[in-house]
């Protein structure tokens, strides 16, 4: 009896020692030498592994950042300038601060604005739906409403509003990682600069149809009338394919375009006061009158000289 116990203990001990030795040797053989800075950079990262930077995860970003000669092409949108400053400090690089961005949903085709013309009966995925057809309303460009963007968001910043059928961005949670932008097959979501105190102006429509077609499909569509384009004195509005687009680099947030838009396709958010359309319109009218007067004053002079 005692013999058996002794033998068992002995065999197991020897076995354990041999296996430990094997493990040690294998670990030694396959050891990978890594730049210790990769670990440091990874620690500084947000750790969301969202892929917003274009790499597979925070570790992949760290590896790429360590290898790269500068940080120009490697930017973590989630961590923003704070994290990038830390990363730059670890690697001894310079970092260029970027303006914070936020996801913007450029479609206002709510159930009310955009009546349904047919009924979808497939898997609830925008990707599948987009491959099949243009969507269950008359608009071929707008939101499909299956919530691929909300499913793609790792930060819980996007949710589908059941009443409007459109996604809603929670600005506080949005990290501008761009996952929703990639997920949207209709390219409705755009990353835009957050703007001073979050104030920004954008066209909430991506419809390229001609006015009457767009108007028939959706009450809130950009009908390509071009009034905003003519009104804007900052040259911030790009007008192409029956659609207006506001260049945020040039926009001065004067809200004139928003006031003159006949369908309400242009949205301004986070402004302290609600837009007083009449006041703005009056201001525009005044300016135009002055401009006309100025032109009238200039003209006779020209004719005299001529």
């Amino acid at each position, binding site marked *: 009896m005692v013999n058996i116990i002794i033998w068992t203990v002995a065999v197991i001990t020897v076995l354990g020692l041999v296996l430990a030795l094997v493990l040690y040797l294998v670990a030694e053989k396959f050891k990978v030498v890594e730049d210790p800075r990769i670990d440091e950079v990874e620690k500084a990262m947000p750790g969301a592994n969202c892929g917003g930077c274009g790499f597979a995860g925070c570790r992949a970003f760290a590896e790429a950042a360590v290898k790269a000669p500068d940080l120009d092409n490697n930017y973590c949108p989630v961590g923003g300038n704070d994290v990038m400053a830390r990363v730059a400090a670890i690697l001894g690089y310079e970092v260029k601060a970027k303006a914070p961005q936020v996801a913007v949903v450029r479609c206002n085709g709510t159930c009310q604005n955009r009546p349904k*013309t047919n*009924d979808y009966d497939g898997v609830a995925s925008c990707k*599948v739906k987009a491959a099949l057809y243009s969507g269950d309303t008359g608009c071929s460009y707008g939101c499909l409403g299956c919530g691929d963007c909300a499913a793609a968001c790792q930060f819980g910043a996007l949710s589908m509003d059941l009443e409007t059928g459109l996604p809603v961005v929670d600005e506080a949670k949005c990290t501008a990682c761009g996952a929703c932008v990639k997920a949207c097959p209709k390219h409705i979501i755009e990353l835009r600069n957050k703007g001073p105190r979050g104030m920004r102006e954008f066209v909430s429509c991506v419809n390229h149809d001609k006015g009457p077609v767009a108007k028939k499909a959706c009450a809130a569509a950009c009908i390509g009338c071009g009034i905003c384009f003519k009104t804007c004195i900052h040259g911030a509005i790009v007008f192409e394919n029956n659609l207006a687009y506001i260049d945020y680099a040039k926009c001065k947030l004067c809200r004139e375009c928003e006031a003159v838009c006949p369908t309400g396709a242009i949205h301004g958010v986070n402004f302290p006061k609600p837009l007083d359309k009449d006041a703005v319109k009056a201001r525009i009218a005044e300016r135009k009158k002055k401009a006309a007067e100025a032109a009238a004053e200039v003209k006779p002079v020209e004719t005299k000289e001529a």
Partner: protein
Amino acid sequence: MNKLLVSPSPHIHSKDSTKSLMLDVVIALLPAVLCSFVFYGWNEILLMLVSVGSCVLLEWAVTKYLMKKPSTIGDLSAVVTGILLALNVPYTTPWWVIFIGALVAVCIAKLSFGGLGQNIWNPALVGRVFLLVSFPTYMTTWSQPQGLFGADAVTGATPLGVIKEGIMQGATVQDLMGQYSYSQMLFANLGGSAGEVCALALLAGFVYLLCRRVIKPWITLSIFGAVALTSLIFWGIHPARFTDPVFNLLTGGLILGACFMATDYVTSPMSTKGGIVFGVGIGFLTVMIRYFGSYPEGVSFAILIMNSVVPLLNMWFKQKKFGRK
């Protein structure tokens, strides 16, 4: 017409649904159930009611209150589990024992894995084996069928049990076999659990399932083939020690197991090739357990063992892809 429906193709669908398939299994089991009622009488009817009732009720209660999901009793899988469980125990089993069996089958073997489709082992079999190891007295006291209108229950052992016992005491198979005839086994009336009594009724149900294209025959046939072949080899070598192939095919829960338990969709391989390997495994293990194991019957264990390797079989034995080697 108001709004046009739009969906990806195909636009028509076969009439099959999980519920219709399960209903077919229930229909296929009816002859065996009726047989067991006739042979075993009121006890069996009560047992069936308790088993099916508790399976359905437990599934409803657990999905609603514990899992907080829409109830899945509508797919009838709980009914199938209940019937199979009742057919798998002796009719003398007390009602509370079968309730425990139902609890294990539905709650532990099925719902704790996530419900129908997620379980690794056949729920009814898990319930049965649980009862077999927990309540051996109830589960191994087999009674001679007493009939719906008869009296005089005679307690005895199943043919497999009698022979196992006999061989252990030194008797030869030939001596022990004298008391049984093959036609008796085929048409019923041997001691055993309810579902083991009438091979013909079970086979009729199996043929119904084949005709309705609910199942394919390969798993069942390969079990029969493997049982016959394995026992033929051993019986050929030593007829006094080992029972013959026909006896092995007709006794015990082999037919019930091969036709209804091993062919369970969830716990059997997807491909035909995998199914054949699965069936051969069950047949071989069944005979091994019967010959060399400590239990007289091995079908349940064999199926459960093979259930556990189904994921591997699914990975190894795939259908040939079109235009590929």
